[in-house]
């Protein structure tokens, strides 16, 4: 019934037309790029597909959390790279959070000197490129003396241009039990904190939470330690020839990356913590004071629950940034995912596959982190309504 000209004026029809046009253009561009790429690959004689993953990689990787040798496959090499990325990111997240929270609180301190120090830190660290900072840390670590003249920063801990060496416990059957006891202690401590809070709410009477937590954390491991015969033998690194033997070690690459990432990200986290706490209106503190709550309780019961809502979303995106920034490892030779993918791409020529895999892995990590953030926001939003 409707004539075609009138149909063109329908918002719905127009919508479909625009989308069809857009899709057609996108597909045309994509087809053009793909066909060019295929032609180019064919003329260069490069294979396509993911078959290369099963072939022998043929290159060594400086450090690995898995047993790895040059005769392993590309897939194993990439997994090693991914684990290295995750390892340095996880350690960096913990360190950056601790440092960032401390500095953020320092930025709020009424102590003029602490305040200035924290500001100086934030303004310096955030305004110099991370890559420059990484290169500086790496250069410093590399120009440390050789193992023969290693610096003994603490008894048994040696710093040299081969990285950091530190004593590790000699394995003993008792350690499992001690660890188990410690885990039980942590569980008991958490239970004590929750019980203390519930007890307080139910009866209004204080519960000795702090002593209970200390007891729960210390007593079970101590008991396990004594009953298993106090197994406390250390494997201390000793200088043998040109390098150390025994003990545990981290490479200069890992250390430089860890320090650089943590120091840089901490500057951003500090600002997030600061603005989160400042976002809670002063009236909240006043209302708490007027009700007779002590400053500590105001912080715990009124300020922090509100500030955390503001802090957590940008904090997660900082964690994500840290993980992505760990890809700068490639500049200082830490074998992370990007660096291993890069080597693989150079060797096989299968650039498209290597880059695609690398991007997909990062996307998965990002989606996981932002999934957590959305979950948290939903949980919090329910309460704020």
């Amino acid at each position: 019934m409707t004539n075609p000209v009138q149909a063109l004026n329908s918002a719905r029809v127009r919508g479909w037309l625009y989308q069809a046009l857009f899709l057609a253009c996108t597909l045309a561009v994509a087809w053009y790029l793909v066909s060019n790429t295929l032609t180019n690959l064919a003329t260069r004689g490069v294979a396509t597909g993911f078959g290369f993953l099963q072939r022998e990689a043929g290159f060594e990787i400086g450090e690995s959390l898995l047993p790895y040798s040059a005769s392993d496959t590309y897939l194993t090499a990439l997994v090693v790279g991914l684990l290295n990325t995750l390892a340095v990111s996880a350690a960096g997240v913990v360190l950056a959070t601790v440092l960032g929270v401390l500095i953020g609180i320092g930025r709020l301190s009424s102590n003029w000197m602490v305040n200035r120090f924290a500001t100086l830190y934030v303004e310096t660290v955030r305004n110099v490129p991370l890559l420059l900072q990484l290169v500086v840390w790496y250069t410093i670590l590399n120009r440390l003396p050789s193992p023969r003249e290693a610096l003994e920063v603490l008894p048994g801990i040696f710093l040299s241009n081969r990285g950091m060496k530190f004593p590790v416990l000699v394995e003993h059957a008792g350690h499992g039990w001690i660890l188990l006891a410690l885990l039980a202690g942590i569980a008991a401590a958490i239970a004590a904190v929750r019980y203390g809070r519930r007890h307080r709410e139910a009866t209004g009477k204080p519960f000795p939470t702090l002593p209970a937590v200390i007891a729960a954390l210390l007593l079970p491991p101590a008991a396990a330690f004594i009953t298993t015969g106090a197994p406390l033998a250390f494997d201390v690194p000793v200088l043998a020839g040109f390098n150390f033997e025994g003990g545990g070690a981290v490479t200069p690459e890992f250390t430089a990356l860890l320090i650089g990432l943590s120091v840089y990200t901490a500057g951003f986290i500090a600002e997030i913590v600061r603005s989160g706490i400042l976002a809670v209106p002063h009236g909240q503190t006043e209302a708490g004071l007027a009700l007779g709550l002590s400053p500590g309780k105001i912080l715990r019961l009124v300020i922090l629950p509100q500030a955390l809502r503001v802090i957590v979303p940008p904090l997660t995106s900082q964690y994500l940034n840290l993980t992505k920034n760990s890809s700068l490892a490639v500049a200082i030779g830490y074998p992370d995912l990007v660096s291993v993918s890069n080597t693989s791409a150079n060797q096989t020529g299968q650039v498209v596959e290597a880059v695609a895999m690398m991007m997909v892995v990062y996307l998965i990590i990002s989606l996981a982190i932002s999934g957590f953030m959305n979950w948290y926001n939903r949980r919090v939003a329910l309460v704020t309504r």
Partner: protein
Amino acid sequence: MSKHSPADQAPIPTAPVPPAHWAASYEEEPSQASTPPQANGMTALKPFGWAKDNLFNTPLNTALTVACLVLLWLVVPPMANWLLLNASWSGSSEACREAAGACWSVIVVKHRLIFFGTYPYDEQWRPFLACALFVAMLGASGVRAFWRPWLAGAWALTLVGMGVLMWGGVAGLTYVPNDRWGGLPITLMLSVFSIALAFPLSILLALGRQSSLPAIRTFCVGFIEAMRGVPLVSVLFMASVMFPLFLPEGVTVDKLLRALAGMTLFTAAYLAEAVRGGLQAIPKGQYEAADALGLGYWQKTMLIVLPQALRIVIPPIVNQFISAFKDTSLVTIVGLYDLLTAATVATTDPEWRPYFAEVYVFAGLMFWIFCFSMSRYSQWLERLANRYTRR
């Protein structure tokens, strides 16, 4: 506990009872004639009183102050000695070896390399002039009074002028291919061009993300999230190794342009999120009013929505520019010769190898000056914006 600025409880004016809306004025209130009491030691003996209030008011604060003082004592004298007192300012690397402090002569000797990379030595006045022009324009763009249409024209002229200076080949200037460019010009140009090119793209992406058409929305969301989900390094790798594959045989794109394309796409995704923030900050009533006036989609967008949204997003754009400026240092990974690469090259000269710290301190300072002044500028813009929106 958070410390709140005294402005929170700023006294409201008294005396000749000004109209109520004056109370919200930002101006400092004129001080009253009488002075605070001297008796209780709050302000008596000013410096001591101040130190007591700000540094030693609680045991914890006293401990922290002492710790800071110790840290200062440990850090400042050796740093001052190294940086200034014992430093050697000129002469050869032998003179440096004898001095206990920093070797600033390395900067004196290498500054041309750090700033301009491998640009032909005798022609380096050209990148210098180009950078000076550029920085002057950047400074001028920060002045609100200059935010007029002619500024865009001035920028276009500047860019043409820079191109002439850098490439040459006309007006008696010898031709310098852009693989000889390096140092500061690369850093400046990559950051400014990537922001400038990313900006229009980001507006389209942000509008697309808000679009009611699912195909367009999905594409924009997918692009933005994908770019934001991966590291810049991987985007740069993609740009440097995959672009040549995308193009028909025989067509080549220069390394600098490839890196620029990668940075632009990456920056556009982040900027799009900033622009989206601005779009969402516009009250629904504005859209309704535009619809009620009978404006079409593009009229509504261009006349009502964008002018308001872009005003809001200027500070985030400046912040994104700071990020882009710092991120240009990553192009060293794909083999471009930016400021950081030039600095690293300077430290590899065997004669000056021990003095890497000086070179990095210098390069860091360059970056810091740009980033710090821009971040201050963006804070100032934000305060300005808040002043206008505050009632």
